[in-house]
């Protein structure tokens, strides 16, 4: 007997059918976002103005209430805050050389949550997402498929993917397809 195995055919637009999946891919709330660039000597004054200690180690973050600072590079942070935020005014009070650009509308946040969320992100991201290498609270600029993202682990099984607005359709569809693959 010849056994024929057939791959299940999926409709290309079916990615949105995530009802049966263990990992959900949802849109994050709108947020205030600042791209902050500064040299090392400005960190204490900026930390004071932000009311949190800017992290200086790779993959590290610091939070105070709804406001968080993600280490992106040796002179670069992504500040994420609630939609009602005084972060721009607060930074203006720091009389040290820095650049603070409002990128609230440049980025889109996507939440990936549920058991296996790490595998869903790893569907397109090469980073080691074991808890020892990428613990809760860790964040990093990295890649997802062919785009650049900032990845932030909020809980063991919860990630936030920040991508550029024009890439958001790609990222959203990619993560939903990956969630479907992980469930299969």
């Amino acid at each position, binding site marked *: 007997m010849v056994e024929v195995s057939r791959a299940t055919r999926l409709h290309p637009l079916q990615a949105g059918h995530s009802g049966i999946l263990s990992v959900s891919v949802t849109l994050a709330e709108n947020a205030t976002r600042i791209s902050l660039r500064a040299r090392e000597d400005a960190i204490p004054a900026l930390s004071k103005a932000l009311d949190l200690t800017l992290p200086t180690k*790779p*993959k590290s973050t610091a939070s105070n209430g709804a406001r968080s600072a993600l280490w*992106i*590079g*040796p002179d*670069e942070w992504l500040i994420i805050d609630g939609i009602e935020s005084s972060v721009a005014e607060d930074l203006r009070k720091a009389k040290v050389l820095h650049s603070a650009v409002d990128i609230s509308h440049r980025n889109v946040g996507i939440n990936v949550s549920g058991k296996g969320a790490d595998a869903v992100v790893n569907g397109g991201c*090469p*980073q080691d997402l074991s808890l020892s290498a990428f613990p809760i609270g860790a964040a*990093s*600029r*990295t*890649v997802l498929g062919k785009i*650049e993202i900032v990845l932030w682990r909020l809980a063991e099984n919860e990630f936030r993917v920040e991508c550029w607005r024009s890439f958001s359709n790609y990222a959203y569809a990619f993560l939903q397809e990956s969630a479907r693959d992980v469930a299969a």
Partner: protein
Amino acid sequence: MIIKCPYCGPRDVIEFTYQGDATRTRPNPASTDQDTWNAYVYDRSNPAKSHREFWLHGGGCRQHLVVTRDISTHIISSVVYARDYIHAGGK
């Protein structure tokens, strides 16, 4: 291939962008000698051994790096910041 970024630690090569041969020296910009410029733009020795290359950790900390890599085995023997490499006179 894994590149060990001096800031970020070991990361997959897809986070990086290759930026070319780090062993070349740009001729004096005032030079109009065609052979010199031709050699700078086109001549590559392509050795089957250790080689120096510029890489950018674009999908990461955005630092420019100089990677010393054996082209035949992909074994990386050193990764340093490009600025340090340049300030040391390309050594």
